[in-house]
């Protein structure tokens, strides 16, 4: 755990969950943060390492989320609904709140009525900054309520954004996005559908239509997206394949658009049709990292561009993105704590 005297004191609410554990891992290796609290109701008083075996060296025990310590930054990694209910308490305890749930991602109470079950603290919605740094970097410095972008939304937006920026996609163009996700997206809770015998080897349509992330995508990309998600057999990873039908473009046009969008980005890697085994973006290639792989292929026969993007939902899709956003917000090096570059070979991480 980092202990520089200047390090920001930090709490993780929901530290026993999957994204909470990932936050603890990242913060423990980050020079700018010092973890002072990790909460869990179910594992109160147990060592963090008893839940997250990779953190056995961390000398920290879970405490009750009812008793929040005073800290500089509070990361909330709780199920939808908890942060909106406790946001006042969070701000009593901390100067800055970074929320990984969907509770502060949309801009208006109406949007929460439409896509979720309403909102308990709509007065905070204006104050919150949606954090997908490739999109909203400028708004992050100094923000005190950061709403980290959703995993499937992040994968989808990163794949399509260069086309939007380059004027190749209009707001009413038909866009299909077919996403494949790993089992960690479901969180540590589990249930019959996520038991190993039932979840192994699946290609299972889930949220075939009406996925809530459509709201984020529409809001921040300005596109209507016909979105479908499938559960597949991996633990970490989200892969979004976009099918779009723009005016005729060349591969050169596409490369220009994607390079323009991402060549300065520390966490986006363009992969579009090379040689070898790994020719297009795939989750294995970014597992454990905060990288997104983004690419495309041209289908002249069908007047189609296929876009690909792959992230680790635990990282670029949640905890990594949250730390990245905090790095920008606090003026740290953008890649601080997020340097791990991944493994090869690697199975289904």
């Amino acid at each position, binding site marked *: 755990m980092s202990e520089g005297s200047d390090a920001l004191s930090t709490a993780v609410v929901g530290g026993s969950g999957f994204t909470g554990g990932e936050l603890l891992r990242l913060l423990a290796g980050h020079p700018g943060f010092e973890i002072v609290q990790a909460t869990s109701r179910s594992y109160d008083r147990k060592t963090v390492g008893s839940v997250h075996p990779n953190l056995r060296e961390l000398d920290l025990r879970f405490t009750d989320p009812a008793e929040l310590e005073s800290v500089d930054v509070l990361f909330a990694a709780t199920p*939808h609904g908890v942060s909106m209910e406790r946001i006042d308490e969070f701000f009593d305890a901390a100067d800055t709140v970074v929320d990984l749930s*969907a509770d502060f991602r949309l801009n208006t109470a109406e949007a929460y009525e439409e896509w979720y*079950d309403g909102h308990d603290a709509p007065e905070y919605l204006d104050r919150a900054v949606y954090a997908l740094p490739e999109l909203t970097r400028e708004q992050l410095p100094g923000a005190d309520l950061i709403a980290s972008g*959703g*995993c499937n939304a992040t994968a989808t937006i990163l794949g399509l954004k260069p086309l939007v920026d380059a004027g190749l996609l209009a707001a009413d163009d038909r866009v299909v996005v077919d996403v494949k996700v790993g089992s960690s*997206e479901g969180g540590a809770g589990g249930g019959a559908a996520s038991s190993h015998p039932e979840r192994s080897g699946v290609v299972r349509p889930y949220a075939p239509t009406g996925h809530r992330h459509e709201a984020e995508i529409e809001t921040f990309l300005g596109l209507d997206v016909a979105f479908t*998600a499938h559960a597949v057999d991996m633990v970490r990873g989200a892969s979004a394949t976009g099918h779009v039908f723009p005016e005729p473009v060349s591969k050169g046009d596409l490369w220009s658009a994607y390079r323009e969008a991402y060549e300065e980005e520390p966490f986006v890697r363009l992969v579009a049709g090379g040689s070898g085994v790994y020719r297009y973006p795939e989750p294995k290639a970014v597992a454990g990292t905060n990288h997104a792989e983004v690419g495309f292929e041209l289908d002249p026969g069908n007047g189609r561009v296929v876009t690909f993007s792959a992230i680790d939902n635990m990282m670029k899709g949640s905890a990594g993105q949250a730390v990245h956003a905090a790095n920008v917000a606090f003026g740290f090096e953008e890649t601080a704590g997020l340097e791990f570059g991944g493994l090869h070979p690697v199975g289904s991480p």
Partner: protein
Amino acid sequence: MSQAECVECGADVTLYDDLEAGEILDCDTCGAELEVIDVNPPVLDRAPELEEDWGE
């Protein structure tokens, strides 16, 4: 055993004799969860769906 029509897919659903109002059945064609609204004659309606959070 009597029959009723599934409101989701239109298939016939076979009903048990001792059926009670409020019971939930699944249609054996489309799998929809159906609530028994009335018993005599049998009336089925789509059961209130459990809001399912697929995680995100």
